[in-house]
């Protein structure tokens, strides 16, 4: 097995990554004995495993993802949600409430109306690419107050950070509640919303660079004049950023600062 590129290289669609026996992850494909990238992205290679992390791309709904949807249409028994995607989501009354709703008596637009933003979880994605959503889980609710920004969905793992450390740092330093949807919508509410927005936009623009956590920490410390309470990383330690892509615990993504995190 020979590699033609290094870890963290930026590669383009069609670019040769290596030859021979390699365990392949997302963003790669084989042509005979050769492995190529099929996306513009960052190489993540360890031992015999190689994948390419996309630098850009619109959100495509996946089961178990926690997302922020906006109600765009209401029918008799379900809400249609915009998911900031080519594909929409459907929330049935049964999945949208914890209590029994008598559809003969109730107008469900009184529960969630057009324009309401809600944190929901994707249960399944049909063949017709409709996402079936639920709110029946911890950390899923209708949002109010604060503000919503939209970032590229491929950058969401960097905003959350490994085991939620990046978003926790921003919450601490800005005094804000923050909910990050896998579909790129981020809800922020609290003391210094502007700073939180700046920090998140900074992560979005520098997502592929090394030492990101440290840079964001420095940015936040400089802007607030306070020191972060999180442990600084020892000098020379391996950057965890590349691994944060795999941390997808729903709790870390959907929680407010009030709820316990690991």
């Amino acid at each position, binding site marked *: 097995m020979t590699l033609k590129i290094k870890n963290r290289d930026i590669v383009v669609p069609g670019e040769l990554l290596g030859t021979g026996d390699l365990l392949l992850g997302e963003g790669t494909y084989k042509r005979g004995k050769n492995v190529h990238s099929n996306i513009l992205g960052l190489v993540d290679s360890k031992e015999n495993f190689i994948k390419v992390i*996309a630098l850009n791309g619109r959100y495509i709904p996946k089961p178990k993802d926690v997302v922020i949807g906006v109600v765009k249409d209401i029918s008799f028994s379900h809400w249609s949600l915009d998911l900031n995607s080519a594909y929409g989501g459907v929330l049935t009354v049964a999945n949208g409430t914890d209590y029994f709703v008598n559809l003969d008596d109730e107008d469900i637009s009184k529960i969630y109306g057009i324009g309401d933003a809600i944190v929901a979880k994707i249960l399944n994605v049909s063949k017709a690419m409709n996402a079936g959503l639920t709110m029946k889980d911890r950390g899923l609710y209708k949002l109010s107050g604060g503000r919503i920004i939209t970032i590229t969905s491929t950058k969401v793992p960097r905003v959350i950070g490994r085991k939620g450390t990046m978003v926790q740092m921003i919450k601490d330093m800005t005094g804000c509640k923050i909910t990050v949807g896998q579909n790129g919508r981020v809800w922020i509410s609290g003391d210094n919303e502007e700073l939180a927005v700046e920090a998140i936009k900074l992560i979005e623009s520098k997502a592929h660079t090394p030492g990101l956590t440290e840079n964001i920490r420095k940015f936040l410390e400089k802007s607030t004049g306070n020191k972060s309470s999180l442990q600084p990383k020892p000098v020379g330690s391996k950057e965890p950023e590349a691994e944060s892509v795999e941390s997808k615990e729903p709790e870390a993504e959907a929680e407010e600062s009030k709820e316990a995190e690991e």
Partner: protein
Amino acid sequence: MGTSKGEALIVDGKRLDGRKFDELRPIKIEAGVLEQADGSAYVEMGGSHVLAAVYGPVEMHPRHKMLPDRVVLQTQYEMAPFSVPDRKRPGPDRRSKEIAKVTKEALESVIYVEDYAQSAIRLHIEILQADAGTRVTGLTAASVALADAGIKMRDMVAACASGKIDDTIVLDLNGIEDNTGQADLPVAYAAGLDEITLLQMDGLMTEDEFEKGLKYAIDGCKTIYELQKDALKRRYKNE
């Protein structure tokens, strides 16, 4: 031989702009130049300047044209009214519709179309300044814009045109050469796959001339491919 005014296009073994027969015009490629578009690119091939933008995958409109098993690549090729000396009336004409069709097909062949079923990818190619070779410049820009948008593709596609002037095969005709040339051969090529994804020809060529023209164009595409790669990597280098 020569232009309609009887002037030669090749003098002392060189073209009027000093280029060798197999030499491309100066090329500039920049990726990620527009804020709203998911992916974008700006390309200059000599005096042809083109902007390409991609939105996708997005919801398909009109819905009834949606395909159940693959994406619809909605392609628009448009020349700005101010891209040519005699103002071009805005709106699609037959030429731009044909170019949009062959461009779309050239790119669909490398895009993972099944991965975006039931959605659309919008591709907009706008010619800001025209000096021959606008369709190939547009295709080169489109490929970069698609990659920039994060669309999955087997390979990048580069494009350029060769042609015949004064009975000689040359690469990358400029406006003057194209106006009075004897043949025009635009080619799009996926260098990594060794696949031709667009090929058109008009004029008169012998089989040998065609073979030479095709070889020139493919070599030109290989050079442009490296520039496309470089533009995309440069975009993320010093942010």
